[in-house]
Structure formats: structure tokens, C-alpha cells
């Protein structure tokens, strides 16, 4: 388990250090990078929109319904905000990206390995790390961060529908409590969780894809391994960083 994590970190490090190589920013490379942003980020926007609509209303509605019987609404919303930003968003976006893109990357690279495309790339001097891994991992990290940001904004925006229907709160007061008073700590921990999740999800997917040897039946197995490993790691990252966040909060 630990050696697997170390192996993934090593591959992630080797891939991400390509950011310092001038060859990484050739026209072809940038094209691959933009394609990955499109597949991982842009194509997820509609799904995130729907999720944010449902969850935004559901969460804010439930919290308002349940908690407002005991505490003031003003005190409920910061709690909801902290839960959504620090816990729900990184986990949910992580799950979504694993399901949508982690499997796709593992399958794509696995198929390329079986078809000997990676060998062919190497034969004419194209580094698979630079051409295949770096754009997927780097764009993956950026996309997970951007999707998390997009999800939070949408979720609270849609949440305002419930608040306006159920309470006498003004929209400005609501926005002031959920969006304009976001704490730096919340942003930092959300970003850390999303950043590390992105790093691990895409590195694991690439690693599993590269582990495929020569048979097509290994490709779905690689995708399944990638999903399971990513899931465990994302849960682990969220748990550890939540613990760190709690300890930090207590020590201050």
C-alpha cells in the first residue's frame, strides 16, 4: 500500500517537473493540454451544474429546516458553508472526476500501451512522460480546482432559492454569510484537498494505464484498479486534511 503511494508520488513528481522544461510548451503539447482541459473540465460543467442545483437546494433546505428549530439561521449558514467548502466539495468533485476522467485516462493509456503507440512515440523521440502524462496530470489538478470553485459558487447560488422561499432573509444577507465571509482556512483546505486529489487521481490513472502489458483484457482491469485506488486515496486525503484542519483550529 505504502509502496504504491510512493510509486504514484514518484511518477507524479517526474511528470510535474516537466513544467520546467521548455519543450513542454511546444504547440503540439499545448494542444494536448487544452484537449485535456476540455475533456476533464469543460465537459463536466453541465453535470456539475445539475448536481449543484439539486444539492444546493437540498442541503440548504435540509439544514435550514433541521437546524433552524434549534439555532438562529445566522449561525446555521456559516456551518453549512464550512461543511460544503471543506468537506462536501473536495469529496464530491473527487468522486465525479474519478468516475468521469480517471477511468477514461486509464483506459486511453492502457489501449495506447496495448497498441504499442507509446513505443512508437518513444521511437521518434517523443517522451511519453511529457506528451502523455504531464498534460493529463497537470490539467487534472487545475480542472479539479476549477470545478470545485465552480461547484461552490453554483451550489450557494442555487441554495439561495431555498433560503428566499423558506426564510425572510434578504439575498444580500444570505450572500454575505455564505460567499463574502468565506475564511482563508476554508479556501486553503478545500484547495489542498482538491489539488492532492487531482494529482493522485490522474497519476494513478496514468500509472494503471502504463501497467497494462500486451492484452486488451487488461485494460478494463486497469480502469477498475484506477477507480478503486483513487477512491481509497481521495478518502484518505480528505480524512487526513480534515484532521489537520481540526487540529489547527483547536490549536489557534
Amino acid at each position: 500500500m505504502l509502496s504504491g503511494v510512493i510509486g504514484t508520488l514518484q511518477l507524479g513528481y517526474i511528470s510535474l517537473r516537466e513544467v520546467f522544461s521548455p519543450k513542454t510548451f511546444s504547440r503540439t503539447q499545448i494542444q494536448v493540454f487544452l484537449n485535456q482541459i476540455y475533456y476533464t473540465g469543460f465537459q463536466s460543467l453541465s453535470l456539475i451544474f445539475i448536481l449543484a442545483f439539486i444539492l444546493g437546494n437540498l442541503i440548504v433546505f435540509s439544514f435550514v429546516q433541521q437546524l433552524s428549530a434549534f439555532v438562529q439561521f445566522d449561525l446555521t449558514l456559516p456551518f453549512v458553508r464550512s461543511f460544503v467548502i471543506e468537506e462536501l466539495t473536495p469529496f464530491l468533485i473527487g468522486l465525479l472526476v474519478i468516475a468521469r476522467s480517471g477511468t477514461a485516462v486509464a483506459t486511453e493509456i492502457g489501449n495506447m500501451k496495448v497498441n504499442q503507440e507509446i513505443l512508437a512515440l518513444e521511437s521518434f523521440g517523443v517522451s511519453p512522460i511529457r506528451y502523455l502524462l504531464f498534460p493529463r496530470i497537470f490539467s487534472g489538478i487545475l480542472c479539479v480546482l476549477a470545478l470545485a470553485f465552480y461547484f461552490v459558487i453554483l451550489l450557494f447560488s442555487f441554495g439561495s432559492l431555498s433560503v428566499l422561499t423558506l426564510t425572510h432573509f434578504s439575498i444580500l444577507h444570505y450572500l454575505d454569510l455564505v460567499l463574502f465571509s468565506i475564511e482563508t482556512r476554508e479556501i486553503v483546505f478545500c484547495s489542498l484537498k482538491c489539488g492532492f486529489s487531482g494529482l493522485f487521481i490522474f497519476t494513478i490513472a496514468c500509472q494503471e494505464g502504463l501497467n497494462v502489458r500486451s492484452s486488451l483484457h487488461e485494460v478494463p482491469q486497469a480502469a477498475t484498479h484506477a477507480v478503486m485506488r483513487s477512491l481509497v486515496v481521495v478518502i484518505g486525503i480528505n480524512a487526513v486534511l480534515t484532521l489537520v484542519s481540526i487540529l489547527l483550529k483547536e490549536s489557534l
Partner: protein
Amino acid sequence: MKVHSFQIRLDQVTLLDRDTREVIIKNVDFDFPMDTHVLVRSEHHHHTNQFLKFIAILCDPDHGSLLFDQRNITEAAYDDLTQTRLKLGYAFDYGGLLSNRSLFDNLLFPLEYHDLLDAETRTTKVKSLFKRFSLEGLENKKPLEVSGKIRKLLCVLRALVYDPQVVILDDPALGLSPEMKEDLVLYIKELMENKTIKQMIFFSQDHFWLQQFQYDELILDEHGVYYQDLHKEKRSA
């Protein structure tokens, strides 16, 4: 002044089969004669296949070193080898065409990635290859949308498109139609005549292909390698 191909040298090389761990060659010292085409053979085709892959700097030896112009390639960093790799063209099996790119983009890719030639010249070059090999109309097809013989031809052409000095061809005629073989042989001969290709290291069992080139033979054996300096006269006799 005549420009030679580069000197390829094996220094105490041991190469084992990746799967079975059988010995392909053991502690071999060998200098490939410059500017000479060499047919590589062994008892098992997968041994030849792996040996050619090794010469194309695509796998490391289990022991010893591969030297190009006295430079130890085995110890060099990946990026330091880019220029050397571009002097080598390697084609193998049916594999290796990028399935998410069109046939045209597959041929264009090595030139585009390494920014060889200007954009217009490289497009013209690839277009002219499509025309020459009667592949017009297939430019936008993906590799899996065309027959195996076209994929095979494209694999070989991609290894030649960036004008390598040394071509390493693993069964280049396999699966090609007789017309394609003729066209390809003619094209390679032209590249040899104008000194673009200076050396061809290859494996083939195709009678037509073997008849078309002058070559020496390198036979791989677990006890060593055997080199036969064959002359055309001898072969035709």
C-alpha cells in the same frame, strides 16, 4: 566529402527476452559496418524483434552498452537522445499509429512535434507521400477505419518521414500488397540513392524485399553473433 551513417557498436551486450528470460545474445562485442545494410536473423522472431528494439534505443540491455559514434547511449538521459532518435527510423508490426489522430496527422506528427521543416513544407511533404502511395482520400480516416495493409504502410512511412539516416525495419513488407511493396522499395531506394538513408538494419522473410537490396547478415545466437558479408553476386548465384 562522403557523410557516413553513424557507428553503432555493441559493447559486451547481454540481452534477455523480456518475458521468458531466454538469452538472445550474451556478452557480445560487435561493430555494425557503416553504410551497410544488415539483415538480422535469429531462431526465434521475437528475439530479432527485441534486438531491433534495442538497437532503436527502446529497451535497455541486461548487461553492457550500446554506443552510437562512441557515445554510450545506455547511460544517456532521455532528452539527450532526442537528436539521436531522430537519426533513427523504426517501424514494427502493425502497431504504433496513434488511434486518436487521422492518418495524415499520424504522418505529420513527428515533423510537427519536433518542429522539423516549416509548417507548409511539412504539410506538402506528407501530402506528396499520400499521393505517391495512392492514399489520397484517406487523409482524414483514423487508423482503425482502414485496412491492415494501409496501417502497415503508414507505420513504415512514418519511420521515414523525418529523413532518418539509419532505418530499423522489423518485417516491413509483412501484410503489404505487391504494389505497395514495390512502391515502398522504390521509395526507400530513392532515399538511399540520395543519401538520406545511409543504413538499413532490418528483418524480413519476404522474398521480394530480400531480392531488392544488397545486405549482409547478422545471425543472433545465445552463444554469440555471426556476421556474414554477403555479396550480391553470391546471392544471385
